[in-house]
Structure formats: structure tokens, C-alpha cells
């Protein structure tokens, strides 16, 4: 009975963070220039359970790189989103639903840095939930290539 309760509460948190992702409720911060083909970013996600927020950071990172982009800071330029068509998320909703489902293909393009350990100053309690900042490395080159191959975004040479 207790186990069932814990499971249900975890599912509830998961549902909520997925909803947050869809509603753009996360923040991305430039950290450093990643190694070639990657972006090194810090993703701030919200959840009542810190471990759910840490896991969701991966999804938020890929979501943000595709649709949102992120602002730069002193010495590190921000980056534009991969998708230039602002309505692509709705137009290709079935593709993105599958891509972003739990354990979906998005996992292939993202890694938690520092094995997902979160610094004390990146774990904030806000009311009844946590705001967790996680360092993430996104393989943008591979992600872009995949989206180009799936005809979700245009390649630089398309049409030529």
C-alpha cells in the first residue's frame, strides 16, 4: 500500500515536470564553451522532488536547445534555438511527443556533467518545491543532424 502510494506520488511529480517542460517552466544558463559540437549549460528545473528535477533537467536541456535557445553571459555568447520555425512544436507534435517521452530519443543527445551532482547553491527551496540547477552537456551537432535527417529543421544547404 505504502509502495503504491510512493509510486503514485512519483508519477504525479513526473507528470507535473513534463507539464512544466511543455509550459517552458525551466531556465537555461550558459556555463562555458563546450568541447566541439556540444553546449555546456546549467538547467534550472522545478519539482517537489529534487531527484525528479535532476532527471527532468536532461529533457529540459534538449527542449530548450531546440525551441528556446539561451542567453549568454560575460565572455560566453548565448545560442539561438535550432528550430527557426516558431510553430514547429505544434506542427510536428507527434514527432516531439515520441522524442520527449520518458526514456525517449532525446536521452541520446544529453549528458549530466559531474555525474548529476548538484552544488549546494544550486539546490533552492521555493515554497513547496525545489528549484534545482544541473550542469548538462548537450551534443548539439548530433542533435541537429538527427532533426535535419528527420526533416524537422532545415539543413544549411537545403534547397541548394
Amino acid at each position: 500500500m505504502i509502495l503504491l502510494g510512493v509510486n503514485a506520488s512519483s508519477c504525479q511529480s513526473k507528470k507535473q515536470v513534463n507539464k512544466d517542460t511543455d509550459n517552458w517552466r525551466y531556465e537555461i544558463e550558459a556555463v562555458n564553451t563546450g568541447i566541439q559540437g556540444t553546449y555546456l549549460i546549467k538547467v534550472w528545473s522545478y519539482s517537489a522532488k529534487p531527484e525528479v528535477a535532476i532527471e527532468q533537467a536532461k529533457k529540459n536541456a534538449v527542449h530548450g536547445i531546440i525551441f528556446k535557445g539561451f542567453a549568454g553571459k560575460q565572455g560566453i555568447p548565448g545560442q539561438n534555438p535550432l528550430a527557426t520555425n516558431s510553430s514547429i512544436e505544434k506542427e510536428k507534435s507527434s514527432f516531439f511527443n515520441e522524442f520527449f517521452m520518458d526514456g525517449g530519443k532525446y536521452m541520446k543527445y544529453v549528458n549530466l556533467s559531474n555525474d548529476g551532482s548538484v552544488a549546494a547553491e544550486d539546490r533552492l527551496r521555493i515554497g513547496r518545491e525545489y528549484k534545482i540547477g544541473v550542469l548538462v552537456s548537450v551534443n548539439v551537432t548530433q542533435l541537429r543532424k538527427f532533426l535535419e535527417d528527420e526533416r524537422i529543421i532545415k539543413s544549411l544547404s537545403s534547397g541548394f
Partner: protein
Amino acid sequence: MRIYKRIVITLAIVTSLVEVVMGQAKKPTIMVVPSDAWCIKNGYVLEYDNQGTKIKVSDYKRAVQESTDLLLVISKINDLMAARGFPLKNLESSIKTLESEAAESAMMTSKAGSTISESPVDKLKKTAKADIWMQLTWTVNQTGPKKSITFNLQGLDAYTDKQIAGASGTGVPSFTAELPVLLEEAVLSHIDNFNSLLQAGFDDWFKNGREIVLRIKKWDSFDGDLEKEYGGAELGSQIEKWVSENTVQGRFNTSDATENMMLFEQVRIPMIDSNGKALDARGWGKGLQKHLKDTYQVESKLMMKGLGQVTIVIGEK
């Protein structure tokens, strides 16, 4: 059912073939070059006296031969652009090809002893060419022991002189990193933003047409000028009408017009013509040349400069 299946497969193959054959616009060539400011700052210039005025010209050959930092940056950009499916023309190789081509042309003779014909204009045109220049500038900033790089990459349309893409900024100061490491980091930081603007520029070309420049001139042997009446209107107006009818949404500017010349700028020509063939300034200008000959019996000479500039000289070939 089988026949139906075959028809569907055949139709699919034909459609994809049509797309492949007819849907491709002419790909612009891109080359990375150091900016004049960088060349002058680093001493890679040729100076000559032009009727009393000292002129400085960038010496690309010496720059690529002597600056390993420049080679590194060019190579890194070439590498990253190739990975994006857009391989670039290499400056150093272009210079070498130009030199060997010039040497070969000078030595070449036919069996009967004829040499290659070359006009002064042909000679002038023998320079490194690209449709888009990726112009590169960087400066090293030093504050005490800390070093940083200010990096500026500009994408310049060679024919309209417009900047169609760009990325610039100053990196994080470092105590320990060596210059090549800072340069590599700068390229990696800025290339994606540069490419997203370049992509937006290309999207604009496909939507609103490739921007070109059209110049109309006349030979002094031509009996008449652009104000002479043809078909009930001045020749200049007839040309303007043709340009208006053959541009995307009639977009163009008549920047200059006299009885002897006309200059059309921001002329938006379709990337692909009505027959599905890729179009450039020359192909488009040929349409005007044909129109002048067929409709008004006016001969003209057409000259091109890359994909984006065309000059038509009226009067004779």
C-alpha cells in the same frame, strides 16, 4: 491491387526525381578571408603608389603563408562548415590555383602556335572569388597576465555589399590558455550563431528572391540612348518594366538612371525559374538581353560577376 501499387511506386519515384532535378538552386560559394583591418594590424599588406596616394592592399598570400594562427582559424571554420554540409572554398588553395592557372595560360600554345586570348577585363577578373565572404578579425586583449580574444566574423554578400550574417564578442579572460586555444574556443562559441543568421539569410532568398545588382550601360557606338523611344516609351522605362515583371513581387530599386546608364539594386530574382531551373544573375540577365533583341532589335553584351551581378551593355556584342 498490384497495378495500383506499381502506379503509386512509379509516381513516388518520378516525384522524387523531379524534386532532385528541378528543385535545386545554385549554391553560393563561401570563403573565409582575414579582414583588411586584421591584415594591416599584422603587417600583411602590399603598399603601392596610386598617383601620389599610398594605397594598402591586403596580402592574403603572405598572411596564409606566415600566420599559423590564421591558418588554424580558417581550417577550424572550414571544418565546422563542412560538418554542416556546406564545405567552403579554401583561401590558400584558391590563391595557388590562380597562380598555377596564370602560369599555365601564359605557357599554353596550340599546335599552330596560337596563344590563349585574354582581354584586360579577363586579367582583372583573375582574383579569388566567392559569393559570400566570411570576413575574420580578431584582436588579442591583454590585461596584466590575463589574455582574451575579441572575435568578429562577418558574412558579406559579395554582390550587394550587405552583411547577411555575423557573430562577434570577447571571450573569457584567461591566465593560462595559449592563443590558439583561445582562438579555437572563439570559433566554437560563435559559429552556430553565425550559421543561424546565414540560414535566415538563405531562407529570405528562397522566400523573397536572391538579391542581385543589374547595371545597364551603352557602347558609344550605339545609335541612340536610354531615353530614345521604343514601343511608345523610353528604352530605360521599357527595361524598368521588364525588371518589374521579372522580379519576385516586383521588388527592385532604380538607384541611378541617366541617358547612358541605369543601376538597379536590391533586385530580387527567383532562385528557380518557371521551368524549374536554377537561376543566377547571368541566366536572369539573359532574359532581358533576349527581350531587348526580340522586341526592339537592340543588340547587347552581357557580362557577369559571380551569381549576383550582371551588366548589360547596349549597342553591340
